[in-house]
């Protein structure tokens, strides 16, 4: 079967874009140009970036599958990973080809209509890697005719999308120092943007831009400012040197403002802030950067001097809405610290903040969004029972914004953790956390109070909850809403399902038997719409019957 987009030459309508394409090479056969990425919302048959589009709304205009026929969905194919590690990667779909990462760092190209494999790239990891939370990868970027992947042994690799052949393979961080690349890169213009995980290992975090053609580094933004840089004064002594500030989830991009938005992870050590007194910028912050230079335009810190491991590593959702009577370019952010935020993404101005889950760590937010932390919520030797739990009231799994309903949807944990304070000792490459929390993860069968999981719909105008779909167990699944009046998600119980985004009622479900840990996507091949989600160790793809 020949795919119509595979050999086609994309016409470049902008001279600037054309020049850019020439600069990155292979212009005559470039499959995913920067122009296509800019206009990815106009080709919903594809899923061109980790978040679908630069706005990261996890919303699709496809509507062949809709609330009236979703009950007829049928399984079309299953990709069974050869790895038993957590399937956290979200695929790309480009012109009928699906590219997905099999844990920890193997890339597979599949026929998106049948699931049949074209090729596989197998990455040989360094003998020893040190990652906090599993040997995982969240996905790929594509630009031109290349796929880009970060690896947990600190490499950034460019693959030829037709063959899986390695174009270049550069070591960008040292895994023996606690660094790892777990996120899907973001392609902007001629650059590939990545950050490093390692917030539990006392790294000094950063965001890097690499030349997509050569793999050479163009700029680095240190998420932990050094001496002489603004923000360094928020770190006591030399604590900035091992201050964490990881970046392990893909950011978003506004081409009109020429600003990228990224979430920064927790400070190190996680649960003992005594050795890093101060606000600890830019940990737990949203940062807005110029992709050309890496210069910081603004920042907003959600949790100053975090003592609970509440990374601001959530999807920065961009929306252009009328907010309280005025057109605004906003950033919607359901944070791990249990608050939902609306920020002006031009300036970083705090517009709204409201708790969307139980919390007892702050008396509230002031007019600038700064929390009034409660001293009794700080970790203690004996343990402080604090809501939300260490995994947060939500986490990295994608929320969704649906412009038709005007609602923001997110996965929620109602659960608390007992936070203990210990004595952190830094040794290079090892954990630097200051004790570990008790009740980090609920066990619904063995815990007396295991909490519960939910999908909640929030009104960005007020932060009020529009509805809740409550589940017995917590969830690690992302969300996808569509113009077919559907909201797809998986959960920790093995279910994949569709809700009505207007009211949260259950429209369809299937038990696939594994934990959902990626974000569902939708795409079209020919005239058929597909929906894919990973649960357990497999990727499942559904569509309506052909007739």
């Amino acid at each position: 079967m020949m795919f119509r987009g595979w050999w086609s030459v994309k016409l470049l309508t902008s001279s600037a874009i054309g020049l850019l394409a020439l600069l990155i090479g292979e212009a005559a056969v470039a499959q995913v140009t920067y122009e296509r990425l800019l206009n990815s919302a106009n080709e919903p048959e594809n899923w061109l970036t980790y978040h679908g589009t630069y706005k990261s709304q996890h919303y699709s205009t496809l509507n062949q599958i809709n609330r009236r026929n979703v009950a007829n969905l049928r399984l079309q194919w299953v990709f069974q990973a050869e790895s038993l590690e957590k399937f956290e990667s979200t695929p790309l779909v480009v012109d009928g080809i699906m590219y997905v990462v099999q844990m920890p760092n193997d890339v597979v190209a599949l026929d998106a209509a049948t699931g049949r494999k074209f090729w596989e790239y197998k990455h040989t990891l360094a003998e020893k890697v040190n990652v906090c939370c599993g040997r995982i990868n969240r996905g790929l970027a594509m630009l031109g005719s290349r796929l880009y992947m970060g690896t947990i042994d600190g490499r950034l690799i460019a693959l030829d999308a037709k063959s899986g052949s390695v174009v270049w393979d550069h070591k960008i961080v040292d895994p023996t120092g606690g660094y790892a690349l777990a996120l899907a890169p973001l392609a902007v213009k001629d650059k590939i943007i990545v950050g490093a995980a390692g917030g539990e290992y006392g790294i000094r975090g950063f965001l890097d831009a690499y030349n997509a053609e050569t793999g050479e580094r163009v700029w680095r933004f240190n998420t932990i400012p050094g001496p002489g840089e603004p923000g360094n004064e928020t770190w006591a002594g030399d604590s900035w040197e091992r201050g964490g500030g990881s970046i392990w989830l893909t950011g978003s991009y506004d081409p009109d403002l020429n600003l990228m938005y990224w979430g920064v992870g927790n400070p190190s050590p996680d649960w003992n802030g005594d050795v890093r007194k101060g606000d600890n910028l830019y940990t737990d912050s949203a940062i807005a950067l110029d992709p050309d230079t890496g210069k910081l335009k603004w920042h907003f810190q959600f949790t100053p001097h975090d003592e609970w491991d509440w990374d601001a590593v959530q999807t920065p959702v961009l929306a252009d809405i009328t907010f309280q009577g005025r057109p605004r370019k906003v950033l919607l952010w359901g944070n791990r610290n249990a608050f939902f935020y609306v920020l002006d993404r031009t300036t970083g101005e705090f517009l709204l903040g409201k708790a969307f889950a139980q919390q007892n760590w702050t008396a509230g937010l002031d007019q600038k969004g700064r929390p009034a932390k409660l001293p009794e919520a700080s970790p203690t030797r004996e343990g402080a029972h604090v809501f939300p739990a260490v995994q947060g009231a939500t986490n990295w799994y994608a929320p969704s914004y649906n412009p038709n309903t005007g609602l923001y949807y997110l996965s929620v944990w109602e659960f608390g953790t007992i936070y203990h304070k210990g004595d952190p000792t830094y040794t290079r490459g090892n954990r630097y956390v200051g004790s570990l929390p008790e009740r980090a993860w609920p066990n619904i069968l063995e815990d007396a109070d295991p909490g519960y999981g939910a999908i909640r719909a929030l009104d960005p105008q007020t932060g009020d909850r529009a509805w809740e779909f409550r589940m017995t167990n917590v969830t690690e699944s992302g969300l996808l809403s569509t113009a077919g009046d559907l909201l797809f998600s998986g959960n920790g119980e093995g279910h994949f399902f569709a809700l009505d985004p207007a009211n949260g009622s259950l429209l369809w479900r299937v038990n696939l038997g594994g934990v959902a840990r990626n974000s569902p996507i939708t795409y079209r091949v020919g005239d058929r719409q597909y929906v894919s989600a990973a649960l357990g160790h497999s990727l499942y793809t559904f569509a309506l019957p052909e007739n």
Partner: protein
Amino acid sequence: MDVPRTTLLLLSLSLFLGPASAQQNPQTSPEDVAAGERMFRSHCSACHGADGTGGRGTDLTRGTFRRATSDQDLYDLISAGIPGTEMPGIFFEGRQLWQLVAYVRSLGARPGDDKLPGDPVLGRQLFDGKGGCLQCHMVHGRGSSYGPDLSVIGARRSAAHLRQALTRPQEKVVPAHFQTRAVTNGGETITGIRLNEDTFSLQLRDSDGNLVSLRKEDLQEVETLKTSSMPSYESTFSGAELDHVVAYLSTLRSVKEIRQ
């Protein structure tokens, strides 16, 4: 090294740790164990639990390990991690890693159990006969599956814990032993041990040992009874008889009796 899984399983079935083929742990003093505990709380407890009884990771308090028998095995496993699982390697070496091994070993230690006052042979007779324990519990394939299988309970629980469970079973009821009472829309009441639950359904083992799966849409009420169905044996057994039963239960450390 690619060791077949069956080999690992057989190794882990040893009742006592076999002779180490490699280095014995040189760091086993109380100070070493304390240092190992501090490392455990920073590096391991998120998955293995603050007290080592497990969570996302394996219960380390059983005294035996599926993938390790010798101290050297444990050292190597903690150092390298377990590929294909969430268990990462650790960059500590030498003394610190041996201290961590010492603490992990201490989690499964059951000091004093070999000097119990009772007679395990008499204890088994009481367990099978007067106590009627097999009506609810299974030991090495004999008995009922309603209550917990006790085939290796001696490796998991101290003698003091076992005695308390026999005489004051309501004092510390773990949630896994809670009973669940479900009432159907038709008015039928079903009570049993909850084996599983999700948003849409509930799986029980009822008092007759039957496996029952219920759809929540068919239920008008679900209640968790935070009590144990285990009766107290304080008045059933004399003090000496309790000693015998505890001694018998403490010998239950392996399933080798039912393995070929």
